């Protein structure tokens, strides 16, 4: 149970509530018994199919009934249907589960059922004597629109994001990566705090770079502008800081690393108590140190000073800052450890 406020009711009130619910429970149990006994006798009829729908509307978590419903289609309905009828049935199925999804956006079984429906849409209709991909294309396109609706309702729903990646990868006609990049830009512009969208962006960029569709050097440069915008808007929000760390990576581009350190120092001057500025400066200066640099004593001292301050302003994580300090001391003077 999540986000359900606690209410303590009197015994009489609880009793009255139970009375009111009793008839509903009786009805639900009778329906459950009916469907389960049909399942046991391999009843693949349309009647049984309709009964599963009634039951799933009451309880979408009942995974066995979703299984049974699919088995009725596989073992009963499909064999008596034309391809067109199967396509219509699966389209109806997708519409029916939309209502369940709106009411229960985090029930895995509903997402899972939609997946199965989409994967079973037949090829067709026949165009010029050949089965076309039109039905599949229509259903998958509609599915992408459904996921976008779900992400409009809750931009951090990780089931919806996972499902989105699955849909994008399965569509008979693939969307170019650049379109997905634009989608994450929209999501991030709506809220810099949406780490799910930043995460997706890291995956899309990796794929665009690996396939040679985007120039990694130039697009990275441009990307820093967007991230700076987020960091300066709310320096306490960790989403863009974590993403920034991905953009820097292991810091092999030292010039870029130094530029970014300068930008963060500028922000720190404005926000002298910013934990994320200091934490990031420690991390990035240590990358510089690892890469080898001339002013290492000065950088080590800088890191130690930040870590000292971090231990005070971010005390829950003081052990971590302590351990990093000890590592720096170890590097600076092996005798001191």
């Amino acid at each position: 149970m999540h986000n359900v406020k606690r209410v303590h009711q009197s015994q009489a009130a609880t009793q009255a509530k139970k009375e009111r619910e009793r008839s509903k429970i009786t009805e639900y149990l009778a329906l459950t018994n009916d469907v389960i006994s049909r399942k046991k006798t391999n009843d693949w009829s349309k009647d049984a199919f309709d009964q599963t729908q009634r039951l799933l509307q009451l309880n979408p978590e009942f995974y066995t009934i979703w299984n049974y419903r699919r088995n009725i289609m596989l073992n009963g309905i499909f064999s008596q249907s034309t391809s067109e009828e199967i396509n219509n049935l699966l389209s109806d199925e997708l519409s029916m589960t939309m209502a369940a999804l709106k009411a229960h956006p985090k029930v895995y079984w509903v997402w899972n059922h939609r997946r199965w429906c989409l994967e079973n849409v037949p090829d067709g209709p026949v165009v010029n004597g050949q089965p076309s991909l039109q039905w599949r294309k229509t259903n998958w396109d509609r599915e992408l629109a459904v996921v976008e609706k779900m992400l409009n309702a809750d931009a951090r729903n990780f089931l919806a994001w996972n499902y989105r990646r699955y849909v994008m990868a399965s569509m008979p006609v693939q969307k170019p990566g650049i379109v997905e990049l634009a989608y994450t830009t929209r999501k991030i512009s709506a809220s810099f705090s949406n780490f799910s969208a930043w995460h997706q962006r890291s995956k899309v960029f990796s794929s665009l770079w690996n396939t040679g569709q985007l120039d990694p050097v130039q697009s990275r440069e441009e990307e820093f502008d967007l991230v700076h915008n987020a960091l300066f808007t709310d320096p306490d929000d960790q989403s863009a800081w974590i993403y920034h760390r991905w953009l820097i990576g292991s810091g092999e581009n030292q010039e870029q690393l130094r530029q970014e350190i300068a930008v963060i120092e500028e922000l720190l001057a404005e926000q002298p108590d910013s934990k994320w500025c200091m934490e990031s400066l420690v991390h990035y200066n240590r990358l510089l140190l690892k890469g080898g640099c001339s002013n290492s004593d000065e950088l080590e001292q800088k890191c130690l000073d930040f870590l000292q301050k971090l231990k005070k302003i971010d005390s829950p994580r003081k052990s971590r800052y302590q351990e990093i300090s000890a590592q720096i001391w170890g590097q600076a003077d092996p005798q001191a450890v």
Partner: protein
Amino acid sequence: MGHQDALDREEMIGFVMSCWDDEAGGFGAHPDHDAHILATLSAIQVLVTQDALDMLDVDRVVKFILSLQQPSGVFAGDSFGEVDTRFLYIAVNALSLLGRLSELDVEKAVAYIRQCQNFDGGYGATAGAESHAAQVFVCVAALAILDRLDVVDQETLCWWLSERQLPSGGLNGRPEKLEDVCYSFWVLSSLSILNKITWIDSEKLTAFILSAQDLETGGIADRPGDMVDVFHTHFGVAGLSLLGYPGLVDLDPVYCMPASIIEAKGLKRKWKALPRRSE
């Protein structure tokens, strides 16, 4: 909590066995429900805890579990094929409790987990998915059982995990989300397997979990003021045990079962909880 007799042993075992799906060779969530890997692990865990594994047709259950591994290395939950790193952990956990881990294609399983690793050091439900503390737990614990923690980017992951603690003391599961008692277990277990449980403030977390209790009816909620349930009570108590809270038995963070049972089976991995306090 040291009350293992609070529930009737025979009744419990009887219920578990009544959930057996003889057609599939696994357990369902309830009598007459289809076999699923989730309920199958729960059944094995209850039987192990009650020292009643002799009730189980081990060969058939092992066959059911192994049949769910996919070519990519991940596991499906049942024959309808939903895949998730949760199911991979469940398979590894169950096979190890049954002493049958040698039959698993370990290389493939580890390869899939590595595919799920993100730049923040964390893991998601499938390859490409956002890091989520509960998925981090399942991946890290599976790797711990398989003795393959070497593939974890421990420094980055522990940083990400330590940043799950919010000013209230509670932990969230992903950046910029609300705190929730259940993450006390997902995050803490991962930190304790990686020996970094001191990277968060244990006193503040203890206070947060206790504040989510219902002092009238008992039990723990997702956060203070909400309705309590068994799920959050379980993970709240599990978190408190790892934090060294007085009066609780030790919990094994890899299996989420009493440490003494796992140790007796010779399955204990390296992990470190906070020392048990006396008051």
